[in-house]
């Protein structure tokens, strides 16, 4: 798409638009996080804020990857190469996560102080 001069000129507005959306998304994230009257979920930080923040960040990251990094019209091979990286990262995050939240039981980290019980941190 963006290789001929005409196509490149056409894309200018798209890039500006995406830039604006990124700015807007950032402002939105900050407002949600810092203004108490705009708070979602409970008062203060909670899961709702976490999800909203991560959602906006993911959308922004996707836009950067798709438009700025041209992943929306890239060669197949690039998808394979980058996809492998993403896949491996998911393995890492998911499986270490699984090791923390083993569904059957988890004893928590020992405090190391002799005679004390391990502390269960994950509620």
């Amino acid at each position, binding site marked *: 798409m*963006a*290789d001929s*001069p005409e196509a*490149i*000129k056409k*894309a*200018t507005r798209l*890039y*500006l638009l*995406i*830039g604006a959306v*990124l*700015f807007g998304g*950032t402002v939105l*994230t*900050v407002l949600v*996080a*810092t203004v*108490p*009257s705009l*708070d979602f979920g*409970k*008062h*203060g*930080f909670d899961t709702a*804020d*976490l999800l909203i*923040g*991560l959602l*906006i*960040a993911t959308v*922004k*990251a996707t836009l*950067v*990857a798709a438009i*700025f*990094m041209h992943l929306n019209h890239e*060669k197949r*091979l*690039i998808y394979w*190469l*980058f996809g*492998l*990286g*993403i896949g*491996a*990262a998911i393995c*890492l*995050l998911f499986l*270490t*996560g699984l090791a*923390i939240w083993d569904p059957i039981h988890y004893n928590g*980290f020992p*405090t190391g102080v002799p005679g004390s019980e391990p*502390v269960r*941190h*994950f509620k």
Partner: protein
Amino acid sequence: MEIPYIFTPRKDTGLVNSKIAIWLFLASEVMLFGGFFSAYIFLRLGADYPWPERTLPVLPGLINTFVLIGSSVTVIFAWMSLKLRKWHQFQFFMAITVVCAGVFMVLKGIEYNVKFHHQALRLKDYAVVEGHLGYELKDGVHVAHGEEPKDEDFALNHHGKKIEENMINFETSELSFNTVRYHHDWVEEIIAHAAERNAAITLKEDLKLGKEAPVLFDKDGNAAPGSKPLAMADGFAKGSVLSMKLLERITELHLEARSHNAELRTDAFREEWKKAHAQYPGKSDRQLAPDVKIDVTKLDLKVEHPSIGFEVQPATVFHFRPRDIQEGPASGTLRDGTALAGKMEESPMGFHYVDALDFRHLAMKVEEKVGDNPEAVEKAIEESWLIKSNHELKEIWEKQQKALGLLTAELAKKDRVPTEKDKYRVNWQEMVYYATTRLEDIKIEAGKYQMPHVKMELDEEFFGPNYAVRAKAQRPDGHLGSFPHLSVPRAEVQFASKFAPAWNTYYAIYFTMTGLHGLHVIGGALVLGYYLFCGKKMYLSNPEWLANRVEVGGLFWHFVDLVWIFLFPILYLM
């Protein structure tokens, strides 16, 4: 020989080499940051202390986000300019990109700097105070309450630096250095410190490492005329003055002796085993071992001195950083093996300004013991060392309790409750408000759902509280200053650190991730700057070549932006 597919894509893959390479590199970068993100998740979920949510100043982070997004747009325009063969336009956009990188790093530098100069302290009861430490004053200097010490009042170390009031003060009468491991800088500090106080550090007893008679050396390593110079001496008389030269010479001789002895002993031991095996052919090593010994009297061994004892006359108080010393009431050991004998003095941590209180960790510990019980927590806070022993902090806490009551009532209308942070933390803006407001005047702003606080000035968004102004604020009791002084006895200190990676795992991961990201910004800016300043030749030989390169550099730059898009919320806002 030329490598194909540098300028023109290979037909079946449709790609030039550099494009494949950069995406591979980005894939590995995903894994690198993936490692850090999984560390973040692991540490945050596994934290056994309250994770400091929303603790960083948002404004610098926000500006940095804008700067990076903006530079992402300009780098794309720079690439487009090349594609359209507009060299000057390329230069313009690329220059903006590089400047953005500079702005980003400057803001980051300010942010780091503020943190590195901000002290935190966790007391034995898990209460946390934050603020700025005072500096040690010269011996005998006293500054009246409410007055600021002058520059010449401060004690300096041998590098000419002021010494923070967080030292272990040890009145030392005897010192014993580890001959091999002593740390030069520390010994120099000890020598300089003693010289300033007219104390003499001298050899405790004669030290003979050879055949010569002991010689007396002065502080410059000189001996009486006629006797051997230090570089050749191998005996050192009791009373020789500690100097680096003296120590170095002793070390040299000791190492020589150690090597010599090791060689002799090893050979002798081998000999003994040979004899033993010949004598008792049927016996195993294990049976023989207790009886196979070296007869040291037969060996020409040299004298080794693994440690060198000195006495300090008169006994002098030395200051050591807490991390460097393991102290006891009558003895101490430095990390480099130096042993001290004498008496541990009072070694309080002196806060010049306390600018925040935090009882969240304390509350958490209480809740771990007694379950969710607000009264127990409240009682524990009131009985904490901080509140009990400092009336200013006590006053602030009482006012905070009143404000909390107001906030709780306000939130109750919306069916909500105050956060842990509202309940157990007093930040500097709140502290200034409480200090400058009478108990009966405390009120909260309707509809804001926030604890009462003073507004931040623009510079304070970046640099933290402006002490020059805030410290002179008028208090209702007529005194000046919003930030209390505090002196914490060593026995109450559990863990102290600047707001550096050491303070807790949050700051550790914050500094590591943003630091690594910052290195990426610098690296990216260097590469893009190279295209900006040295790309002309590439452009003239083949504009498509430079365009490809800038595209590849741009991809990296977008990736750096993409990482920041996640770093900003998880570190600054969550």
